């Protein structure tokens, strides 16, 4: 018994600590408000600027102490306000992580509710405690007919609490991202919709099968089988993928050719989804990619899938055409289409934002502008962060009264940023393929 308790606790412990970190940030931000109002009593002319700087510093300090995804949030935050969903999502998942794992009786109850059987009756073996925590559930290991299976079970009440959880994070996000409410609401719906979708395991199984089937021809990739008859609204049964996560794999000192091969598989996977399927795995979290012993890249977790509307797709990717950066008229039309600028802007704002977005796009689209691109090049990423820093400290952005960028862009930006990051980690040199219409 004793050892079992420990085992269960060892999984989320670091995540709990991370959640605690967030809470302390929240407390500090609250403190800044106190300070602000106290100062204002003495000196009524004090502006909100000071407050925002205080907040930003505290948040940044706190985030930079964190490793992993939260650090990425800080980096992405300075890069583009579009990282909102990421910050939201991390906050949201952290809230979930801080929940202790499901007790075994509840696991049994969940099985009985959906299948009328205990897990022991469904599989030959079934681990009593969770082997892994997923964002809104936990993973158990089972075997059946000699095959190792992964069973994902959702925490009860998660689907029901998405909206209220988002409301809870809202004030935090408002301060964290230094946005106005209008801007926030612009993205809110998109995030909420995606999170709700993630709680629908039936949909996830269906999408997993669809996308992994459509991508099965891509070299060096492998996907688990999903077992529909052993899955339900709250339970997913799939093959267990054995192997190393990218970080662990890199510690085994793979050759450059190997790294390029894995990176290329990753690139091809996204290329096919974005340009051919027009729907994609929008969660390039390192934990979702597993490199197997036979050198194939296993991809799991299709909980977050973004479907690209055709007109958004055309506009977004037309931007990476290199020569387009000169063609002013076409560019204007696309900027309007993607809601980067609108008629509400003054002439001054229009010129300013067009210039900034152009710069951003030419930088972010850089990998597409040559036949191959070396993602090991850290100076490229530094350039991105520098630009981001500049933008986030720019008064024009802070003062802007409206949301910029189509909401469809949220998850695409997040996905590409995540992909670039993974490729950077892999130090891979990639053949950056483009669809024919962009060549």
């Amino acid at each position, binding site marked *: *018994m004793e050892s079992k308790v420990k085992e269960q606790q060892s999984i989320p412990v670091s995540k709990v600590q991370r959640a605690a970190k967030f809470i302390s940030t929240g407390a500090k931000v609250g403190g800044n408000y106190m300070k602000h109002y106290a100062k204002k009593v003495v000196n009524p002319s004090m502006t909100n600027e000071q407050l925002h700087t205080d907040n930003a510093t505290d948040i940044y300090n706190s985030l930079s102490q964190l490793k992993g995804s939260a650090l990425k949030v800080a980096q992405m935050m300075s890069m583009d306000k579009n990282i909102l969903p990421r910050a939201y999502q991390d906050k949201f998942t952290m809230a979930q992580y801080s929940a*202790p794992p*499901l*007790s*075994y*009786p*509840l696991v*049994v*109850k969940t099985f009985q*509710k959906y299948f009328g059987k*205990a897990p*022991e009756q469904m599989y030959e073996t079934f681990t009593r405690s969770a082997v892994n925590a997923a964002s809104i559930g936990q993973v158990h290991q089972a075997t059946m007919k000699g095959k190792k299976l992964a069973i994902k079970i959702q*925490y*009860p*009440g998660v*689907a*029901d609490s998405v909206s209220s959880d988002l409301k809870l994070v809202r004030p935090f996000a408002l301060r964290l991202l230094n946005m106005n409410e209008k801007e926030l609401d612009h993205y809110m719906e998109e995030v909420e919709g995606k999170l709700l979708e993630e709680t629908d395991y039936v949909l996830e199984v269906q999408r997993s099968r669809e996308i992994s089937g459509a991508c099965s021809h891509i070299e060096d990739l492998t996907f688990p089988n999903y077992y529909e008859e052993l899955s339900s609204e709250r339970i997913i049964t799939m093959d267990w993928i054995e192997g190393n996560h990218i970080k662990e794999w890199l510690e085994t000192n793979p050759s450059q050719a190997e790294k390029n091969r894995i990176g290329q598989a990753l690139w091809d996977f996204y290329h096919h989804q974005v340009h051919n399927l027009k729907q994609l795995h929008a969660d390039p979290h390192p934990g979702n990619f597993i490199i197997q012993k036979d050198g194939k890249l296993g991809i799991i977790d299709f909980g977050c899938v973004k479907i690209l509307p055709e007109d958004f797709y055309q506009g977004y990717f037309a931007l990476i055409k290199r020569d387009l950066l000169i063609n002013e008229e076409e560019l204007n039309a696309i900027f309007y289409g993607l809601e980067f600028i609108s008629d509400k802007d003054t002439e001054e704002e229009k010129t300013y934002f067009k210039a900034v977005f152009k710069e951003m796009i030419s930088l972010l689209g850089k990998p597409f502008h040559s036949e191959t691109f070396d993602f090991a090049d850290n100076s490229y990423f530094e350039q991105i962060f520098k630009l981001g820093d500049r933008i986030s400290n720019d008064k024009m952005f802070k003062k802007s009264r409206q949301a910029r960028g189509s909401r469809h862009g949220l998850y695409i930006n997040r996905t590409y940023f995540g992909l670039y990051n993974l490729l950077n980690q892999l130090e891979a040199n990639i053949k950056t393929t483009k669809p024919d219409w962009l060549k």
Partner: protein
Amino acid sequence: MENTTAKKASKADPKGKIISGYVEYVLEHGQEPVSIYKFAKELKMKEEDFYSYFTSFEAIKSAVWGKLFDDTIQNLESQEVFKEYSAREKLLGFLFTLVEELKKNRSYLLSLYADHKDLKKLLPKEVKSFKSKFKDFANEIILEGKETEEIASRPVISDKYDEALWLQVWFVFQFWLNDSSPAFEKTDAAIEKSVNLAFDLMGKSALDTFIDFAKFLYQNK
């Protein structure tokens, strides 16, 4: 033919017949029968015969609760894995199964208890048998928990653990009555969280070590 078997069954178990008759009456009418006379008449029973089984509606309600408990335990013990559970898991298992049993009688329970603001005052009489049965069950769990050191023995306080667990059952019942989430998922979450809290409180904690240390300092001053 059907009639005779029914009669035979009711003759063999008039108590059961009264209980199910009562539940049915509450379900159909949304309230208790006006008097025992009327209710006995409806059951085609003589009032004096009725009294040889139950003397009041409270006694029937209490029997309904007792049956809920028995069904829960029966169901629980039929789950093979139950024997292997730790104390914490046994309590969890009990509450999850209880909620399942309650679900079968939700309309009955709602029509009797949904409007009562202060359930604590009302219930002691009606849930007496349920309570005493549960306390036996709880004491078994507590004893087992103490053996496996899941639960810390503390002077005075540990004698009240069964009472505390009973309050927890009551909390879960009230929560469930007001739960409107699909499939009562929120109740599941409430059970998990409250049982974890209860066992974390009953388990050995920093507080015990602190008291021990304080005692040591005091004695060695």
